[in-house]
């Protein structure tokens, strides 16, 4: 979260009780714990937001069980699985970078941020390949196959499935892009000496953000890719 820059170091005020004891007053300036708490709360709103979407998804899965599994079986599990691995490794590099920063290894921390960014781009690239493939198969928001009532359209349940798929992976991809932007900003701040081994709240919060981004994917992946993976003949009509 933002910190006001002052030319001088912030000196906390002292409050004195009636028996003469002195207590340091917590100001809003340089409040590491407050910055952490604020960002954790922000993460909570992200959880509620994605949580509501999973609720919608679960509900429609129960309404259109077979359509969902049918639609899911079209996905390329290999690409989706690779992306999961890519994102998990990126979470590792992000965390290692933060540890290096804490231990004073600024150069190592920067290397780790670069590695995380490369993995993030790799994720987006693979996602782009998948979306392009879908598009060529005629499956994309706004195309005929996803327009209910159109002669070429898919069953209603599949349309809902793909609609939610593009919405949720799109929103997730948007978070990845924001994350890359945040990492660029972080590098700038590190180079300017504003983020340092003694003052790394920005780094901490961006790492926290990145953890949430990969955590959401860990739930998105099985819900869209795995429910229709493998031999689905046994699960259809069994609902």
């Amino acid at each position, binding site marked *: 979260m933002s910190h*006001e820059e002052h030319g001088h170091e912030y000196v906390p005020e002292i409050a004195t009780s*009636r028996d003469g004891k002195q207590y340091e*007053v917590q100001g809003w300036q340089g409040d590491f714990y407050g910055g952490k708490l604020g960002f954790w709360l922000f993460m*909570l709103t992200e959880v509620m*937001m994605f949580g509501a979407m999973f*609720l919608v998804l679960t509900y429609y899965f129960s309404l259109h069980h077979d359509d969902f599994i049918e639609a899911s079986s079209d996905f390329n599990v290999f690409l989706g699985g690779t992306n999961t691995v890519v994102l998990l490794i990126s979470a590792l590099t992000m965390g290692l970078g933060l540890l290096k920063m804490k231990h004073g290894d600024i150069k190592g921390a920067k290397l780790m941020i670069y590695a995380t960014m490369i993995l993030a781009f790799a994720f987006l690239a693979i996602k782009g390949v998948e979306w392009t493939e879908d598009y060529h198969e005629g499956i994309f928001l706004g195309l005929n196959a996803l327009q209910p009532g159109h002669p070429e359209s898919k069953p209603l349940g599949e*349309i*809902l499935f793909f609609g939610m798929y593009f919405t949720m992976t799109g929103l997730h991809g948007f978070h990845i892009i924001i994350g890359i932007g945040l990492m660029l900003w972080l590098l700038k701040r590190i180079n300017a000496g504003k983020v340092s081994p003694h003052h790394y709240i920005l780094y901490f919060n961006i790492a926290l953000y990145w953890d949430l981004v990969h955590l959401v994917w860990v739930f998105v992946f099985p819900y869209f890719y795995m429910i229709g993976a493998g031999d689905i003949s046994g699960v259809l009509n069994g609902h």
Partner: protein
Amino acid sequence: MSKSYLDAGETHCAIGHPKSVFWQWMLTVDHKRIGLMYAAVIFTFFFVAVFIGLTMRIELFAPGAQILDGDTFNQAFTLHGVIMIFLFIIPGIPAVFGNIVMPLMIGAKDVSFPRLNWFTFWLYIFGALIALSSLWTGNGFADTGWTFYAPYSLNTNTNVLTTLVAAFVLGMASILTGLNFLVTIHRLRAPGMGFFKMPLFVWGIYATAWIQLLATPVVGITLVLAILEKVFGIGIFDPAKGGDPVLFEHLFWIYSHPAVYLMILPAFGIMSEIIPTFSRREIFGYRTIALSSASIAGIGYLVWGHHLFTSGMSDLAKTIFSFLTFFVAIPTGIKFYDWVATMYKGKIVLDSPMLWALGTMVTFIIGGLTGVTIAMIGSDIHLQDTYYSVAHFHYAILGGVVFLLFAGIHYWFPLMFGKMLNEKRAKLAFWINFIGFNMLWFPMFIAGYQGMPRRYFDYLPEFQIYHQISFFGAVIFISGLLYMFYNFFDSMKNGEPSGTNPWNATTLEWHLPSSPPPLENHTKVPYVDFNPYEYKHGQPVVKFDYETMQRID
């Protein structure tokens, strides 16, 4: 004379150090200035929506079309609802008094993230501009009602899209306000001030902030899904395409029902400040009031289903939601008994803030108890979507939240401006408002009970008498509002200087070195080893030397 936060140059800015007074206000990060700017904007919107309401009452003066056609009437009540809910009462008390007073009450210099606070204010303005822009773009303002129920909101060709985007942006502003306040209350309390030494208004803001934080994202994403549905037609809420419109109602009310507690909890906080101060007596049952705020926020999260009794839900779910809704009345009742017990044997001073607080007790009890009647499944089937619900809602929110917002203005006016209100005018304005308010809304209970449906621009002749009484009530009420605001503006200029603690109050916002307060609030941060409302023989117990903030009692 010492400088106050209102003086030129007495502010910190988000960007640079502008010389012009105008930019000093636009870029200010000072919580008191931001609160005042919120007040200016939300009350402007309030009056716009009030006059839209009056237009509707003129239309309803007689059966048949008077001045509006049916479609315009639909847009009118949507605009009234969208402005009142999203632009006025949801930011409402937290944005104004949460900003101005809450940091003062806990002895902080500002909120935890002052620049985020500044950003939030402008995000709110941005959202408001998007909402208003839909008045002049596309096929006119939305005609769905402020609830945007699917599938109509997906199929109508009016400009629902812009309004949905606006509601999403305003929701983000609300989330960030809540986040900022939560961190502020957790981190910036003066040394010694544990959670159970906080003034009760801070408890109200705290409970509200949790609702803002946890409930708003749900409606946010629901609006995003509705937007995508409108743009790409994937069928998420459209029954013709395999979707479920009732799911939209659920997701909408998962936020929008807690939102009414988000409105009322800080208002109850204001009540809990005014009652002990003007009874000159320590508040009765401090902990029960504090914890009832928390439990209203908690239970309030689980009652949304009572909006869907007629929408198609299993009988078991209906029963559970009905009972959970009854439970909300328990902590609310506890608060009311605590307030009454505080007044018992107190030295009651009937100044204007107390008058508003007592008036609210009458109106909110009517609003609250009629709420219990429609939480019963059987009677709700009869009363759903009638004027009875409309009257209940306005008694609870206008007669509860907005009345207490007015009470708060009367109470903290000397703090904000260093001037006293003209008490005589303030009391007269209260009585005009109180009489007009009851005349405006009470007939609707009867009309609604007899079957007058809400949102209709035409009606059967037997309802005419109720609509006409309402109309005259509305005229009286609006005259009272205008007179009250005239009093505010006049007293800002011509009021008597108030001094720092005109009400003999005990909480920290009345222990400032000057009135209006200086830029960084208290001269020094005090050590808090006292309860918020300590009175003895009708006098505040705790006294400070305002230079050193050491206790001198």
